[in-house]
């Protein structure tokens, strides 16, 4: 079995966000980069499958030079190969442009029986790339998956929906987007971290895939501007340490008469 995992490097979720000089993207100074949290579930699932059934795991990422590191971080947990599509970042924030680049990379490194992605990339929070890659490859996908059973011809996936789960039988090849609950991502071992440095990474340029990054970027989604949200004015504080009953009464009154929400 051959598995691809699409992984992306994102700002640590605890980062302070500042608007950069372009006014359209963040200021990257001082940002710590991490594997997108949902991609960790995707990585773990692929490694578990390799361990239980035998598989070759290829990580694929598209991004600037520094993103080679995300592949190293994945290797520290397991896996076999890495493909880094090195770009200028022109396609950042444009899910369809990214999906076209990743699809070309998947085709070049493939074929694959299973492709894992995260349900969404934290930060740009699009939640689109997995389904788009599946469509471009003309294969099925199951999104927001919290459990998988692997059968002979296909897999059964539990997918999170409002108020419940859909249990889906899907044939291979397909794309699965990972949701929290799918597994417990392991921590990299020291041995893994050392070994990761020597793992093979194939570096390709977007042009090597026959695509024009500058033309793609922003063709289907442009970030016109980026702003910090307006500061919220201070709320009303009710002290309920002494008389919780009175505090509760006052809160209920405010919610009914002032906020008019109950």
């Amino acid at each position: 079995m051959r598995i691809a995992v699409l992984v992306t490097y994102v700002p640590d979720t605890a980062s302070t966000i500042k608007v950069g000089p372009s006014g359209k993207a963040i200021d990257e100074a001082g940002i710590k980069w991490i594997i997108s949290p949902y991609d960790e579930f995707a990585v773990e699932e692929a490694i578990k499958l390799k361990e239980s059934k035998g598989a070759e795991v290829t990580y694929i990422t598209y991004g600037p030079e520094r993103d080679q590191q995300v592949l190293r971080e994945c290797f520290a947990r397991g896996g076999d190969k890495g493909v880094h599509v090195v770009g200028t970042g022109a396609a950042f924030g444009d899910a369809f442009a990214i999906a076209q680049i990743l699809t070309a990379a998947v085709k070049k490194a493939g074929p694959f029986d299973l492709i894992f992605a995260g349900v969404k990339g934290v930060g740009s929070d699009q939640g689109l790339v997995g389904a788009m890659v599946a469509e471009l490859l003309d294969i099925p996908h199951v999104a927001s998956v919290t459990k998988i059973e692997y059968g002979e011809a296909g897999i059964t996936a539990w997918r999170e929906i409002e108020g419940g789960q859909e249990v889906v039988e899907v044939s291979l090849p397909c794309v699965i987007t990972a949701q929290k609950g799918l597994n417990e991502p392991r921590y990299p071992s020291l041995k893994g971290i050392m070994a990761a440095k020597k793992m093979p990474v194939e570096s390709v340029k977007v042009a090597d895939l026959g695509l024009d990054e500058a033309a793609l970027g922003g063709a289907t989604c442009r970030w016109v501007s980026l702003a910090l949200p307006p500061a919220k004015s201070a709320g009303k504080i009710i002290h309920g340490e002494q008389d919780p009953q009175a505090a509760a009464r006052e809160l209920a009154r405010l919610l009914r008469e002032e906020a008019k929400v109950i």
Partner: protein
Amino acid sequence: MAGILVFVEQRDGHVRKASFEALSEAKRLAQGKGIPVVAVVVGSGVRGLASTLGDWGAEKVFVADQPELAHYSPQAYAQALASAVGEAQPQAVFLAATAMGRDLAGRLAAKLKVGCLPDVTAVRWDGDTLQAVRPVYSGKALATVDGGKSVPVVVTLRPNVFPAQKSPHTAEVMALPPVAVRGGYKVKEVVSLQAGELDVAEADIIVSGGRGLRGPENFALIRELAKVLGAAVGASRAAVDAGWIDHAHQVGQTGKVVSPTLYIACGISGAIQHLAGMSSSKVIVAINKDPEAPIFKVADYGVVGDLFQVIPALTEEVRKLKT
């Protein structure tokens, strides 16, 4: 014919509230330009439902009604939508940013080779182009985005953000050509979490509990308050990771992103990853014994106190107000 095409999501023959919101917002934008709103409904036995969509401003409703479409399938539904796009030639396709809408939007956009503006909280015209605002970086920034050269542009609208408003029309109902549903994807079963439980992603009011609850049994306090308010039960990751409640209830970065009218956070400190999921709520209430807890910075109303005393008292007060 230009216009805005709205995918109307239904489950078991009921239109989702978030789809009415999407229709209403489409109507508001379309009116400004004198263009029509067109709806599309996909499912099995949904034809009757189509004619009611005129009440929500749809001038035309396309219907894909086939037994094989009873359950959501990304490829089949995207095919039905693409054929409605072919008929209506809209400038934009709107979907509610629900589990189905978010997923379908990606598939559809790639099929049409256009862009998608996901999970937006505001939409406006910039000349003849639609511009949208979406929270990014856990709500720590707001991006104004457009679809570049995309025609149409696919937009998903965050539930509970846009007001639903009727706008009566007589809708012309038209059947779409049958979708050739491919094999390889089959919904075997739909499992409901717990009968009668509201999902946080759709609720108007949410009462959430965190580590301050100290144990799973104390979620009963949260449930009780939620019941009198007609609210859904939410949770912080700390409560979920401790195994006190199912992940489906988790609000935040790695849980659900919600925008209720009222969000009541009980025993939740207000970590940035939690705020990522709820900071666009209209009114935020925090109940916490620590006056320095960061949740108070985003709260419209805060009660400093012991939740074990405040919540039951609040439940009682709300019950009084409601009777």
